[in-house]
């Protein structure tokens, strides 16, 4: 029963720069974990250390409590799916699928039976005699998947397996991968930079940036309760707006000022930050998701006056990009009530969904 633990794992290619730093993460048996992050964040290095393709500089990787650091990749019994498919170019589909079994000296007939079975599952039975370069990207990755599931392993490592495919195929194959995960009762460690894919396919998402694990949780948690400004900006289909803010504590009731707007702040929310000493330092930033903004024609004390620069239609919604002295704000409004570029608007924020970051980018309103 594979349960994978990263215990303070670091990877350094050069002494000064760390690709992965002090990573601690546990993947429970039978769960599907997605590591999400921009390119260069260390997610691939993490997976390759787990696979045994790269050495571990510091820390320990354990599987079911057993130290794996020195175990050769061949002996770890993980199956891997690669972003570039990594099929053997000199072998046909059959040969590619048979390779993991041949490596274990399985009898020929048994291999033939298993290959047939897997090819059926993945709907590539009629491609068995083709070479990889004769296949489309989607077919190639089906072969890649088949090669991973053909042997009796229960741990799958997937390194952006859908990264090179078109949107339609990506959706199709990710359903397939999730189905296989369920059927085989596997533990899956999956890497992607696509948050929609991560949300759709996994039980839990781990966000990485610059070699460090930022936060783990499901998509909703990451959206509503990001641990810091990086996660807030990285997660979300429409980009979050970040505006300078401050807390006016001398007023009768606590007020949050964002630009010229003075937004009443509930006692409870205000108290959440009261104990944060960092607020005193002054510089705060407010994060507002576009769907937490409404636009009005009339001004008010709690509204931020802005001028519309660009209107981007997205289906029945439109993203309004508006600028003011405080900075740039994006708001999602229904298309039929969208203002035109040049119009003056007054933005009102949903106070319960405003995120507040301190000078170090930490979310100081985070519910725990």
């Amino acid at each position: 029963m594979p349960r994978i633990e990263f215990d303070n794992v670091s990877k350094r290619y050069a002494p000064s720069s760390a690709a992965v730093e002090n990573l601690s993460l546990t993947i429970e048996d039978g769960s599907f974990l997605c590591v999400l992050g921009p390119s260069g964040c260390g997610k691939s290095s993490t997976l390759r250390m787990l696979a045994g393709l790269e050495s571990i500089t510091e820390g320990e990787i354990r599987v079911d409590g057993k130290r794996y650091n020195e175990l050769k990749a061949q002996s770890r019994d993980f199956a891997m799916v690669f972003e570039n498919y990594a099929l053997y170019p000199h072998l046909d589909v059959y040969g590619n699928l048979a390779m993991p079994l041949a490596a274990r000296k399985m009898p020929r007939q048994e291999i033939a039976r298993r290959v047939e079975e897997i090819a059926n599952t993945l709907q590539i039975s009629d491609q068995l005699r083709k070479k990889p370069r004769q296949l489309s990207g989607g077919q190639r990755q089906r072969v890649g998947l088949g090669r991973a599931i053909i042997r009796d392993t229960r741990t799958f490592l997937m390194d952006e397996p859908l990264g090179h495919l078109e949107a339609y195929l990506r959706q199709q194959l990710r359903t397939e991968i999730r189905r296989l995960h369920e059927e085989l009762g596997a533990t899956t460690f999956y890497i992607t930079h696509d948050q929609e894919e991560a949300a759709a396919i996994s039980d839990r998402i781990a966000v990485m940036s610059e070699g460090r694990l930022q936060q783990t949780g499901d998509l909703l948690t990451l959206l509503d309760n990001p641990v810091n400004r990086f996660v807030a900006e990285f997660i979300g289909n429409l980009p979050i707006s970040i505006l300078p803010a401050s807390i006016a504590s001398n007023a009768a009731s606590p007020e949050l000022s964002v630009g010229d707007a003075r937004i009443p702040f509930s006692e409870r929310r205000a108290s959440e930050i009261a104990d944060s000493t960092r607020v005193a330092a002054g510089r705060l930033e407010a994060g507002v998701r576009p769907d937490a903004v409404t636009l009005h024609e009339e001004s008010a004390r709690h509204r931020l006056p802005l001028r519309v620069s660009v209107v981007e239609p997205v289906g029945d919604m439109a993203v309004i990009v508006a600028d003011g002295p405080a900075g740039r704000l994006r708001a999602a409004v229904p298309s039929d009530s969208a203002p035109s570029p040049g119009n003056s608007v007054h933005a009102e924020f949903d106070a319960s969904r405003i995120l507040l970051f301190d000078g170090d980018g930490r979310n100081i309103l985070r519910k725990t």
Partner: protein
Amino acid sequence: MKYFREKRRIAFAMISPSILVIVAINIFPILFAVYISLHLWSFGRGVPRFAGFLNYEELYYDGRFGDAVLTSAKFVFFAVLLEFVVGFALAFLFNVKVRGMATLRQIAVLPIMVMPIVAGLVWFYMFNENFGVINWLITLLGSEKVGFLTDLDVALFSIVLADAWQWTPFVMLVMFAALQSLPEYVYEAAKMDGLNAWQTFWRVTIPMLRPSIMIVILLRIVDSFKMIELVFMMTQGGPAGRTEVLPWYLYVTGFQALDLGFAAAMAVSMLILVTIFTQLFLSRVGIGNDNK
């Protein structure tokens, strides 16, 4: 329409000078050789006379020609075998990633470019029975001196050795480049599929090197078949014709015996042989097809 005609005109203008030279100096001589081979044609013995296939008939019954074919075959076989086996192994040696290996590799391939006549001169000196360094080395090992270039059974192998000195680095260099061009990801896939080192070598490395192996063997066969310089410098076909390879026999027939018709017949036969061989080989390897 005008656009395409312009393209064709330019293509024609750019290709034709080369074609002209190749036709005049390469193609025409081959046709001329066929013409000569159908004549009794000698220096200084009057006008050439048409003789039909007489020269070829003579060639067919010429025991010396048969011997030369056999000697050439032996030379090609042993030289290519030695060069390939050693060169292939050396490619893996020089593929070990250590500081300084690249420099050593660049020095090790220097013999490829040495003027063959000079190679023949130096090996001739080293093989000398009376003061040659190789005889000195084997006497150090307690053996008797060997007549490397005079012993009937040894002479051909001495030439093979000199040829291998020059061309084993070539095999090494090509196989090394082929090894380098193998994508890293197949080795990662092999690791994840659980292949051990032995399985990886036989199931991944060798099959993926196959096209390069075929090309290097083809080039070595064709080139060692041409070899004449070592024989010219070291043995002149001797002892007792034991190193008389086809090119040497042709050279002797044409420019010592001055029997041009007969030599031309031999040339035509050689060309046919090489052409059939390379076409067969190439059609199976696909050097002529671009994979682009």
